[in-house]
């Protein structure tokens, strides 16, 4: 059954052969490079895309930012340590997203439609509306955080990274991450409380 489902899979159990890149033929090196980039994108695209969007990048710019991240990764592929791919992509995304946001703000374009287009397909119409409202409220509350705090906050609260991982990703001292996170959480709670009060009215 498996064979019929996966006809292209070679039935081999061989362990991967470790070769030094310098000893490989150019074509093989190219293949490895392309494979690695492709794997990186396959594995981390979703995280990067969502991170960029949650950083408040305009929805029309998100794909552009992600593509720029991929191009940077392609350029610096040989310098990315194995196992640090996600960290590299998220860190790059943070920087590119910041630039993009700044550019748009300079042009005076800060408004954006709400992200909340994805909702639980099992939900009824009222539930969908409620979900969209809540998601829109989250965007508004996040918009109230300064960009430097927002990045740390999103990585901690929504991506589930530890402070040490955030420090590694954003190339910041852990102490800076801790203080930004503390202030971001205070600000977030304060603004969330106000949003809740508005909703109750």
């Amino acid at each position: 059954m498996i064979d019929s489902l996966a006809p292209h899979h070679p039935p081999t159990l061989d362990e991967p052969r470790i070769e030094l890149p310098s000893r490989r033929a150019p074509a093989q090196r190219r293949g490895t490079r392309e494979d690695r980039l492709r794997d990186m994108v396959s594995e981390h695209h979703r995280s990067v895309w969502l991170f960029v969007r949650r950083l408040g990048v305009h929805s029309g710019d998100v794909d552009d930012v992600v593509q720029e991240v991929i191009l940077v990764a392609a350029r610096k592929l040989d310098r990315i340590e194995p196992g640090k791919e996600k960290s590299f992509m998220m860190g790059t995304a943070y920087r590119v997203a910041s630039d993009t946001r700044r550019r748009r703000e300079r042009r005076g374009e800060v408004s954006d439609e709400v992200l909340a287009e994805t909702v639980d397909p099992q939900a009824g119409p009222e539930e969908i509306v409620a979900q969209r409202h809540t998601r829109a409220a989250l965007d508004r509350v996040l918009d109230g955080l300064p960009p430097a705090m927002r990045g740390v906050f999103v990585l901690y609260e929504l991506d589930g990274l530890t402070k040490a991982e955030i420090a590694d990703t954003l190339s910041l001292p852990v102490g800076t991450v801790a203080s930004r996170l503390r202030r971001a959480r205070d600000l977030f709670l304060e603004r969330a409380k106000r949003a809740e009060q508005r909703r109750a009215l």
Partner: protein
Amino acid sequence: MTEPRRLIEDAGFAGELLRSAAADEPHAQALGQALKVAASAGAAGAGVATGASIAPVAAKKSMTSWLLLKWLSIGALAGGATVATAEVWVAAFEPSVRHTASAAPAVSAASVGTTEVVAPAVSTTPRQTNARPTAVPVPAAPSKRRDAAAVEDVPDVVENPPSGSGVAAFDPLPASRPSLAEEQRVLERARRSLRQGQPDRALMNLRSYWRMFPKPRFAQEASLIRLESLVSVGRCGEAATEAKRFSGAHANSALRRRAESVLRSCGR
């Protein structure tokens, strides 16, 4: 180092807000586009993607260069006009200086005599500076323009690019081959089923996927979803076989580690 309790676990409104982000997903075409850019950028070697796939951010840089050129042109134009006008005045009031002025190149050559020469001088300058399209090395450097159609122009990724060919990652696909977006959409269906806790349905979706795409371009991703689904329904034996097959077929894949960790959750 202590990690504060995450607000997303909070039972209050703050937690509710953060949990609402759990449904976020990139749009359906996002991954397909990203993979095309990756294929193009990877194939171009040292990060120089082919013209069609350059991101708009790069295009904006190009736009900046163009604007720079534009302002330089305007500057040159204004400068040229000023020089020409000055020479006209010099010619009118101090004929002895004319020789010195005519020794200057191009602009001054057209500027001897009466005020009528100002017009050719001005019109010549733009022609010179309007060399912008040729100054930008379009064929040598990648074109920095990108539009919606440009992404579609990038050849699709193939699972096993033929080694030794000129551009190994590209495959001249027949027109009848299903689109990348279509393949991505079908696979996304399986992924969504799995995420929604319906692994049986995900397996069914995957069967459709393999049937529809006998030479899949997302074979690794499909195998991984299948593996996760098998683990979710407790078919650990099949999952182990699938994992071995995955490791064998994609020995250098970054997803291999994930496949192994998925299998470990089955106690293997």
